[in-house]
């Protein structure tokens, strides 16, 4: 009788034990799939980093090659005196295309998302949007800015400023807040154009965007990294 009781007890215990083991095994296997997913994600992230590194290496190579090309051009143009004009023309064209780093006096505008947004009805209006950047750049161009960059991205005539979620894409590069807009031109003129009553900057300030404008004696604006391609346009005879 006693042995029977013991046997039944141990049987129940083993029953509970195997139920627990089975449930645990099922849980672990079903979660292994989830782990695999994150593993795949990590792999993708790794790949992105690898490609970025490759891109950087390739870009460095391109830069050295470009420097060599520049040198060759220089030697080619200096070899003959008559080509002095061509050289200056070339330099001018490169500057117009944004292919050279430029330096000069101008202004720096910093745009940041507004901070105390809680007392505003429309929170979105206190954020910096792509349209705000376009308006500011338009105003700067109108005031005679010769070279403009946003967070190190040179603004050329092929530049597109588009909204991509919570960031902005300029020249297909992702750019985030704070936006530092550098512009070369007559600082007083640019400053006045932006500070004008009823201008776009005053509207931005009203909307709650953080705006700071400083006049600078010397600003360096990087060159444009893209390529000009003409696939459909041809020189008209």
């Amino acid at each position, binding site marked *: 009788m006693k042995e029977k009781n013991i046997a039944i007890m141990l049987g129940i*215990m083993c029953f509970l*034990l*195997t139920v*627990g083991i*089975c449930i645990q095994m099922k849980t672990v296997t079903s*979660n292994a799939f989830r782990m695999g997913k994150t593993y795949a994600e990590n792999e993708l992230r790794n790949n992105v980093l690898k490609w970025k590194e490759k891109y950087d290496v390739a870009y460095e190579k391109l830069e050295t090659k470009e420097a060599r090309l520049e040198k060759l051009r220089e030697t080619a143009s200096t070899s003959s005196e008559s080509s002095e004009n061509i050289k200056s023309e070339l330099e001018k064209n490169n500057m117009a295309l944004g292919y050279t780093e430029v330096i000069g006096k101008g202004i720096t505008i910093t745009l940041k998302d507004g901070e105390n947004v809680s007392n505003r009805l429309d929170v979105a209006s206190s954020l910096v949007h792509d349209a705000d950047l376009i308006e500011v750049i338009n105003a700067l161009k109108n005031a005679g800015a010769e070279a403009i960059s946003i967070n190190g991205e040179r603004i050329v005539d092929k530049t597109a400023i588009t909204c991509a979620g919570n960031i902005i894409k300029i020249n297909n590069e992702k750019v985030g807040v704070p936006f530092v807009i550098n512009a070369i031109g007559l600082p007083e003129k640019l400053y006045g154009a932006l500070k004008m009553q009823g201008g776009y900057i005053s509207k931005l300030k009203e909307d709650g965007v953080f705006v700071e404008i400083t006049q600078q004696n010397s600003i360096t604006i990087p060159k444009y990294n893209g390529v000009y391609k003409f696939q459909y346009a041809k020189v008209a005879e």
Partner: protein
Amino acid sequence: MIYISIIIGCILGAIIGMNAPVISYTYSSYLAIAIIAALDTVFGGITSVLNKNFDLKIFLSGFFGNAILSIALTYLGERLNVDIYLAAVVVFVGRMFTNLAIIRRHYVDKWTNKFEQMSLKMKEVNATEKKEAK
């Protein structure tokens, strides 16, 4: 008798466990430590049966006490960011090995005694046969 009931319990448990729902992953570490505690208790129970000092009250209180204490330790370790459950696993597995050694010794002794007796009997039989042949 005991082993038959254990096997039946295991088979029934496996069948029901296969059809049981999956628990959430956060609680699986607690279930794992409870499984280790239950395994330890089962081995302890078999050992005590062999030693003929099995007590149902001690067996049940040991099972629930061990499981609850180890689960509480796991929870505490999670709060403190220390893997305390490893200590419980070490203790339980160590005891499992001790109990297994006791069980093994019991059966090894039993079988060696049986063989010795058999060989003694065989010798006796041989001796009597030889005597009769003479």
